[in-house]
C-alpha cells in the first residue's frame, strides 16, 4: 500500500444521449491525493464532481484516461481497489427499516469485519455522530439530518484507507457538521485519506488540506484555500455599501465588484492602507474583512464562465 491513495490522469467520461449530442461530464481530469490528506472537490451542480467520485470509487467506467487507487487501476482491476475504499453516496439513505445500530453493524459485517470489531466500531461511530439516543429507532422515524449522520457513521466506522464522501453533511445542523469534521480529521490522523465534495465552502475551507475546482468537466484551479483566495488578487475585501460611481477610484488596487450603489474591492494586505486613505478622503464608510473561500470560488468560477 505504498502507492498514492488516488491518482488520475486525463480522465474523461462521455455520456451518450439518445437522440442528442453526447454529454462530456469529464474532459480530462488529472489529480492526485496523498496519504492522510483531506481533499475537497468543488464545483457547480453538473460540473462533474460526482462523476469523478463514482469513477474513482469503481461505480462507473471512464471513457478514457487513467485512474488508480493505491496503485490499482480502477478501470481494469476494480476488485483490487474496492477493499481499500468506502463511499457515502450522494443522496444515499440508510435502510428505513433498520435502526442506526443495525445499519452500521450489518454494513461492517458485510465488509468482512469480525463481530467484535464490528460491534466496537459501531458503538464508537454512533457515539461520534451523536446517534446514541436514536441508535435503536428505525431510520424511517429519524429526521433527514439524523439519517445522513447514520450514513456518515456507517462509512467512517469502516476506517477504510480511502473514503469518498459525496456531500456528506447535506441536511445536517451546524453542530452535527462539526462533529463530522472532527471525525474526518481523526480518521486522517489515523492514516485514512479523504476525498469529498461539498457545496458548503466553509466546510471545504475548514476541512480540506487542498481543493480542486471543477468546471464543465475540467479542473480550473487546484491548491490550498489560501492559494485560491490569492488567485483572485488579494485576501482582504473592502466593502463600501454606498459608493455610487466611485468604482474607478479603486480599479488600480484590485478587482472591483459593483452591486447596486455599493462596491467591493479585493486588495492585498500591503495595499489596504492606500485604499483606506481614499475612502477617508471620499467620506465613504468601509467595512474590512477577509475574502471568504465562497467569494473566491464565485469569482474564479464566474471568470471561467465569462471566458467560455
Amino acid at each position: 500500500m505504498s502507492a498514492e491513495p488516488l491518482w488520475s490522469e486525463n480522465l474523461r467520461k462521455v455520456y451518450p444521449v439518445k437522440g442528442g449530442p453526447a454529454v462530456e461530464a469529464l474532459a480530462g481530469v488529472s489529480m492526485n491525493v496523498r496519504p492522510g490528506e483531506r481533499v475537497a472537490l468543488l464545483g457547480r451542480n453538473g460540473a462533474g464532481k460526482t462523476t469523478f467520485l463514482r469513477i474513482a470509487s469503481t461505480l462507473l467506467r471512464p471513457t478514457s484516461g487513467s485512474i488508480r487507487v493505491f496503485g490499482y487501476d480502477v478501470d481494469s482491476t476494480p476488485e483490487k481497489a474496492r477493499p481499500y475504499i468506502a463511499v457515502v453516496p450522494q443522496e444515499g439513505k440508510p435502510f428505513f427499516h433498520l435502526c442506526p445500530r443495525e445499519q452500521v453493524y450489518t454494513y461492517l459485517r458485510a465488509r468482512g469485519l469480525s463481530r467484535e470489531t464490528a460491534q466496537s466500531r459501531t458503538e464508537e461511530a454512533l457515539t461520534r455522530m451523536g446517534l446514541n439516543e436514536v441508535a435503536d429507532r428505525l431510520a424511517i422515524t429519524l429526521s433527514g439530518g439524523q439519517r445522513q449522520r447514520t450514513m456518515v457513521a456507517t462509512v467512517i466506522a469502516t476506517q477504510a484507507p480511502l473514503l469518498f464522501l459525496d456531500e456528506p453533511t447535506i441536511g445536517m445542523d451546524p453542530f452535527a457538521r462539526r462533529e463530522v469534521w472532527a471525525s474526518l480529521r481523526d480518521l486522517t490522523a489515523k492514516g485514512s485519506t479523504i476525498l469529498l465534495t461539498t457545496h458548503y465552502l466553509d466546510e471545504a475551507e475548514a476541512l480540506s488540506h487542498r481543493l480542486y475546482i471543477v468546471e464543465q468537466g475540467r479542473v480550473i484551479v487546484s491548491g490550498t484555500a489560501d492559494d485560491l483566495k490569492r488567485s483572485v488578487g488579494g485576501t482582504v475585501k473592502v466593502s463600501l455599501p454606498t459608493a455610487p460611481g466611485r468604482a474607478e477610484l479603486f480599479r488600480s488596487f484590485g478587482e472591483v465588484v459593483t452591486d447596486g450603489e455599493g462596491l467591493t474591492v479585493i486588495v492585498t494586505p500591503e495595499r489596504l492602507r492606500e485604499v483606506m486613505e481614499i475612502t477617508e478622503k471620499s467620506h465613504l464608510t468601509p467595512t474590512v474583512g477577509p475574502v471568504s473561500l465562497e467569494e473566491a470560488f464565485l469569482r474564479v468560477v464566474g471568470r471561467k464562465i465569462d471566458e467560455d
Partner: protein
Amino acid sequence: MRIETTEGSARAFRGTGAFLWTEVLVQAHEELAMATAMVTQTVLLVFVYILNPALIGVALVGSVLFSTFTLGQRVLNEAAYIRIDHKANDLYLAGPMSPEGYFLGMAAGVLVVYLPPVALLGTLAVVVAHLTVETSLALLGLAAVVWLFAASIGYIFSTFFRDNRAIWAYASLFFNVFGVLPPVFYPFGFFPAYLQPVALLMPPSAAAALIQTRIGATALSTGQTWLALLGLAGETTFAFFFAVYWARRTVRGS
C-alpha cells in the same frame, strides 16, 4: 491500517451471509408484508375449493411453487428500491463485498423471511394431497429451483428500471401472468395441447407438472418429462449464472 480482505482482492460471494442477515432484519420489520405474500394463493385456493374441491391438492402444490416463484418479484422490487431510492448498492458495492454476494444475500434474505407462509402452504399440501416423503422432497427441491430461477430473473430485471412506479406494474404483471395463467394451480392436462410445450418451458408450470405426475393428477409422456426437467435445469442454471455475471457487470453503470 487494516485492509479488510485477503490479498487485497474481493472473494467471490463474499458478504452473502451478512447481506442475507441485513435483508432479514429489513424485511422482518414489515410484518404485514409476510401476510400479503399469501393473498393471491389464498384467493385462488378458495376459488378452486368452491368450484372443484377435488382439485384442492393440485392447487395447494401449485400454491407452494407459485409462492417461491413470486419471491422473484420481491427480489426485483427490493433490489430496485434500494438502488433507486437508497443508493445502498453504491454503499455496499464500492467496498470489499462482492456483487454476487449482494445479489445472492438479498435473494436468500427474502427467501428466509417469506419461508413461513411457504412452509404453511407446503404442510397443507402434504396433508391434503397425501404427499409421500419422496414427493414432498421433490416438491421441496422443485420449489427451491423455481425460487433460484425467479430470484435471478428478478435481480436481472431490477437493473433495467430507473423508476419504482414502472416496476410495480411490470413486475406484478410478469410474475402473476407466468405464475397464474399456466397450469400451476390446475392440472397440466387442462392446458391447450398446442401450448403444453410452452408451459413445460416455464419453470413454475414445469415444476407443477412434474409433481402432478407424481400424485397422479397428470400423466406426462417421457418426452414431456425430459423437456420439463431439462428446461428447468437449463433455464435455472443459465438464469443464476447470468445474474451473477450481470451483478458484477452492472456495478459500474455504463
